[in-house]
């Protein structure tokens, strides 16, 4: 169980970073909705797990937070990507693509291997 959570957490972090890169500063609820939308609602996110992940990213210095006003004038905590976060995103995205490519080759039609 623990391993799966870790993997999930890892990918969740990547999604958060990518979301913040695309959308700019965003609050937790916004990030959660955006992740669901991007996944074409294939992913159902338990919103509660998002906040510890955000805290971890903040402690690692990848994102920074600040209280602000939401589009409909509600007080909310906004997260934004830091320079270190941008680098982390680049690196992790590359790693992920590589991993996906490798797995992809394994799953590709067997004829190509000959």
């Amino acid at each position, binding site marked *: 169980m623990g391993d799966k959570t870790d993997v999930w957490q890892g990918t969740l972090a990547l999604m958060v970073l990518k979301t913040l890169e695309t959308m700019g500063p965003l*609050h*937790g*609820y*916004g990030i959660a*909705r955006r992740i669901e939308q991007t996944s074409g609602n294939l992913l159902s996110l*338990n*919103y*509660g*797990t998002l*906040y*510890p992940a955000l*805290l*971890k990213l*903040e*402690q*690692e*210095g990848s994102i920074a937070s600040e209280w602000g006003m*939401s589009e*409909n004038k*509600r*007080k*909310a*905590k906004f997260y934004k990507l830091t320079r270190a976060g941008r680098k982390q995103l680049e690196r992790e995205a590359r790693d992920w693509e590589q991993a996906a490519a490798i797995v992809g080759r394994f799953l590709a039609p067997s004829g190509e291997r000959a």
Partner: protein
Amino acid sequence: MKKLRAMTARVAGLFSAPRREREIADELESHLELHIEDNLRSGMAAEEARRAAILKLGGVEQVKQIYRERGTVPFMEALVYDLRFAIRQLGKYPGFSLTAALVLAIGIGASTAIFSAVNPILFRTLPYPDAGRIMMIWEMRSGGSPMDVTFGTFHGLSERNRSFDAMAVMKPWQPTMLGTREPERFEGQRVSADYFRVLGIEPMVGRDFNASDDRHNGPNVVVLSDALWRRRFAGDRAIVGQKVTLDDTLYTVIGVMPRWFEDVLAPAAQLWAPLQYDPSLPPDGREWGHHLRMVGRLSPGVSKTQARNEITVILHSLAQMYAKGYDSSGGAPDGMIVNPLQDDIARGVKPALLAILGAVLLVLLIACVNVINLLLARGAQRGAEFAMRHALGAGRLRLVQQLLTESLLLALIGGALGILLAKVGVRLLVALSPADLPRLGAIRVDHAVLFFALGITTLVGLVVGLMPALHASRSDPHTGLQQSSRTTAGNHQLTRRALVVSEVAIALVLLASAGLLLRSIQRLFAIPPGFDASHMLTLQVQEYGRRFDSDGARARFFEQALQAVREVPGVTDAAFTSQLPLSGDYESFGVEFEAYPNEIAGPGFRYAVSPGYFEMMRIPLRRGRLLTERDRAGAPVAVVLSESYAKRMFPHRDPIGQRVRIGPNIGHADKPWGMIVGVVGDVKQLSLALNDSDAFYTTPTQWDWVDDVQSLVVRTRGDAAAMAPAIREAIWSIDKDQPIVRIATMDQLVAASEAQRHFALVLFAAFAVAGLLLAATGIYGVLSGSVTERTREIGVRAALGASPRAILSMVLRQGMKLAGVGTLLGLVVAAVASRALITLLFGISSLDPLTYLGVIAVLLSVSAIACWLPAHRAARVDPAITLRAE
């Protein structure tokens, strides 16, 4: 890197927990609102919108908990919690906290200061590579005690031995350099070529001595200390190869030692020059006197016993080569002694330092016991709090952890204060310390000392906290929650009484030690030195320069100077002597008595004194006559013996008229005899404690050479110290280039000669007073605590007719019983422990009954005062009020 950063953030998070709690609550709240709004917009009913949002978030409390754990480090969170609580607790009772911290500060500060003084001498290895291989080498007297080596011994051993990589000898050298204002005399060393190689240190600038420097009539070269180089030559590297003038002679500077170089063999040395002795000199020459100290570096794998055996064999074969009179003290040497340098320099002071270290640890112990007592008293008051915590589910371990945190915090505050105290204390120690304390320059609060302080602080925190913590955690929550609990209070009281008894016992040990030292010093200073030390100023005058190369010129200068000093108003008498009693001077020679043919009598102190010296010193004449102006060069040599020497040599005969040969003349049949003309009273030369008073006196002109360093002794009408400038001017009026050093009144010299005992006494007295006060507060604390707890019982007694007097005596008796038991216990311990002091004691046994009686009296009276206050309070308990309070 990322992990580290996260960890830092989490540890930092320990200190911002409440703020973070609020933030996450706010954030989740705003999240819900945003979600609900969205849900409403998508057409849900208000109730449904809220429910869906909460469901999707997945339990607010759960998220908060995960968030909380993620935000900090859980086990450390408990620690931080304990720490916050401890700080609050200490802040709530500032009186208690301050007292406890100060008591600990005294204990930790004193032990840290003493440790810093003891560490470089006893524990830290000397600052040389492979310092353990550096050995001090002595010739052995027939009694087994060490003696300086002769040049012949050194030369013979260094040529033949295979045990040492290098050997060297050294002797003091005090060259004079003319400064801008007054002539300056430096401390230095004449050393053989391998001196620095033995120590394993090379000059930082320039080069080391080599064999061609250290030969008879070799070049005049000198190596400077870093301090001298910086002070006199502005740290200029170009100094190497330049010439400096020392004692009217040009010396070429060949090197400068590194700044960190410490010459433990001559701590004050500023410059070093080669010895340049002539090995071809006959064995009865001056160079063969026992006046050189010798060091050697053992070859790897050679033990000191092997080395000693080898060089002892060589020594015996050397002695056989010069069958008649191997050296100037006569007789064949008994053997060699090889001691590690570290042990050798510590030898004289080790017993004193260990005793002082022991004493300071006792003070620390009393301080700890005192604080344990305070904490136990506090614990008794906090019984209800502990019971409550326990009832709410705090485990025993958790409770102990919390209380230990408190005591560690207390110790930490005490330790911090203690280190400040130690910094002041070390400066005080160095100022107070006897001049012969080795490695004085290395005494400071350094890393090792801070580490020690931290170590004992932690230890103290644990020791002090453990007993009260176990006590508190053991108490039964049920009884604890009830307001008045008898059994636990009784338990506490028992422990606390045992602790007070031990405090009193330790205080007695300290007091007894201090008392024994005090009595020793009193005894010592009551011993007559053999001369009248009152109103006496002493100065060491050194002749310097080429113009004094002839003995005649030297003698003339001292005679003229003496004349000038006698004319100074306020001076009643003055004289010169080659060595001054109780000043640290030590020069002895053998004597050949005609009455004992073919034998050279054991050495006596040699004094060359100006006529009138005995009268000036008020040394009594026992037989014959004193030395006069007529005992000059050319006249028959007149010798005066000390009483003990005369008695030893002539137990049944009149010594007057007996013939002797002295100094370099001994053993030479062709040299004329001198004659004993008088016997004078014994004088203490080395120490008041030593009965070593064999001595012989001649006038300076009848000795084989005129000493170039002499001590002027002056008797004054008023305050001796105030006369110093006038006397100095009088000497400089004869020749302004003569350095004058070691200016001191005789009283100061007498005091300084017992500096080590005095130093120990001052420290022991301070520790004993601290111990006494702490023990007294301990008794007071326990007794007054017990009175408070027994207020009701006392009230009942009073109501039933006990008179205030009876209650007073009841409490007094209770307190004095503790003091009495403690005293008895202390007596037993002191009787054993005071044996450690034996080398410092003088004239009394370590079980001196008078000392013990006095100490017991002091301890019991102070205890009585400490008991009186709570007893008095108990006697005034008003039965009506106490009983109504129930």
